[in-house]
């Protein structure tokens, strides 16, 4: 592991009496792909949300190290975390959760537009990413007119177009067959680790985990002691 881009230290998160996370610690290298596995309800999504600044943990720190500065995401207010999510992180969810009334191109372009990038520039950029992910010619399709795998690649383009340093994916292949799932993983890895960016994938699929450089297992909100990577 060269340099650490994101480090979680002793995260606790409670939902009522449920400890969704307890003392979870983890670090992610700058161009590493990390798979998080574990039984349903073991806290994978909660960990991902804390790492990405979607929800703050009850205790612990989430350190982001970029360009020589260190920021504790857990201590930022919602507005600053929102900005981080827009500019530094990218997200791919299980069902793309793309905006149905926009075209594929607009769905990708809207991410940089939210940070104030001019629409023309944003769309040019988006077009390049879509082309690079094998979606050239589908730019003007609406989301309903794409297959599940295609939609997921649009979501990957959206996660990448802002130049995110870390991409978070929560069961990105959960709704896909194994071949399409392979293609989507190809696209994800090609657009992250291959470009020197970090990828964090929550998955139930051992094949998906096998393609990542490292796997951690969770149980009852804890990260299990290191095992032999699958």
């Amino acid at each position, binding site marked *: 592991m060269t340099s650490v881009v994101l480090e979680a230290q002793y995260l606790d998160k409670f939902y009522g009496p449920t400890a969704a996370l307890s003392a979870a610690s983890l670090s992610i290298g700058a161009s590493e792909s990390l798979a998080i596995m574990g039984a349903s309800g073991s806290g994978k999504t909660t960990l991902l949300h804390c790492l990405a600044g979607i929800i703050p943990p009850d205790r612990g720190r989430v350190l982001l190290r970029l360009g020589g500065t260190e920021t504790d995401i857990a201590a930022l207010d919602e507005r600053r975390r929102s900005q981080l999510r827009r500019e530094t992180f990218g997200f791919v969810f299980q069902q793309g959760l793309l905006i149905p009334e926009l075209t594929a191109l607009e769905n990708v372009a*809207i991410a940089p537009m939210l940070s104030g990038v001019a629409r023309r520039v944003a769309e040019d950029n988006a077009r390049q990413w879509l082309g690079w992910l094998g979606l050239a010619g589908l730019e003007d399709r609406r989301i309903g007119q794409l297959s599940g795998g295609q939609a997921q690649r649009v979501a990957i383009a959206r996660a990448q177009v802002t130049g995110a340093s870390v991409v978070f994916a929560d069961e990105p292949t959960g709704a896909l067959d194994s071949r399409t799932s392979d293609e989507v993983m190809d696209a994800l890895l090609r657009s992250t680790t291959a470009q020197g960016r970090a990828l964090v994938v929550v998955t139930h699929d051992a094949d998906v985990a096998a393609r990542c450089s490292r796997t951690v297992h969770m149980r009852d909100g804890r990260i299990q002691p290191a095992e032999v990577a699958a």
Partner: protein
Amino acid sequence: MIPRLTWMLARPTRESLGVTALPVVAFGIVTALLIAVLGGAQAFWSWTDDLAITYQALAIVALALLIVPLTTLGGSAARLSARRRDDRLATLRLLGATPASVGAIAVLESAALALVGAVLGVVASFGLLPLLALIPFRGEPLGLGSVVLPPLALVGVVLGVTLVAVVSAVLGLRRVTISPLGVRTRQDAPRAHWILPVLAVLFILVTALAMSALSGLGSIVAILVVLAIGFGGSIAVLNLIGPWVLRLVARGRVRRARTPEKLLAARGILESPKAAWRQVSGTAMVSFMAVFAGSGAAVLDALSGAEGADSETRMLTADIATGLTITVVISFLMVACSVGVNQAAGILDRADLYASLHRLGMPPAVADAARRGTVMVPLLVTSLGSAVVAAIVVFPLTGAALLLAPLSLVVIGAVLAAGILLVRLGLVATAPLLRRASLSVPVSV
């Protein structure tokens, strides 16, 4: 078994309380407004002299005008209560409930919400009636005694509102079975042939010509008939070309949009110009009516004053203006309520999407601005567009009104502006729902 299941599903929990309350409040408002309108009409029926028949005819016209926004509001309230049920209904289907029993539950729940709302509306109407009683017609206030409906009529109103809810729920269910749950199908506005707008323009011009010949007609009855045809026809034309115009406007805005909220708003309209139109079409009629009848009343008023007409005619025209203002205000109230209710339904519909956009870092304010745009743009296009069409149709009248009674046009303008503001308030009222949807972190996904 079905009533028990309905209660299990409809029973307000803490999270769903706001959502259950919304349709109830909406049905309550429908009922209170309906009672006020009927109360006013009843007052007219208590008169027995020569003029009474004219007032009664006008009351029927006002009631007819209010039916459209009223049923729209009733339909929205029913749709909202259907929307919050969708996911639970799907679950029921998975558990093996038959479509028939699922349908029965849906209808029963709508009916129950409407019934509770209607009863609350009756209670609320007792706060409204004293105000109504103060409104002067024929030179004196209506009086509380003449606007209070007999108990039997109140029961009838409650049952009527509930029936509207049941009918809309049944119609809504049919729609659900046609298009599978959760799938947004693209309903294009029927690609209007270019001939349609051309015909529409022709109709408007011909109507305008007919209107200019209006003064040649001797009897007030003939004038009213021509007015009714012109009014009804123009409204029908507006309804035909409305979605088409919105689609055109939205297309242009998609191309020109520079910010995410503008792009989202324009795409939202383009997604279904028909739905965008339906949401605000109530205003089209109201603003058309305000200009059309308002300038007519102003001219009648000015003429009767100038020619030293008898006091009866003068009073009639003044009363027409009063009745018109009330009808416009009530219509706008209903439109504002149905926009609010529709928006609430839409937000619930897209809660997952809003939550995911928030996770991507889209500030809730941007999502809210986009949503406001999908209503305000059609609203402005619609209300201003219809006002302009009405102004053209009654150009001779409007022109005269401008000369004879400029103040009345200012009043019409102010009433329209207030109405648009009301609708805007309906939008603002639903903003907290969107915030909550954005900030929720679903357990799954």
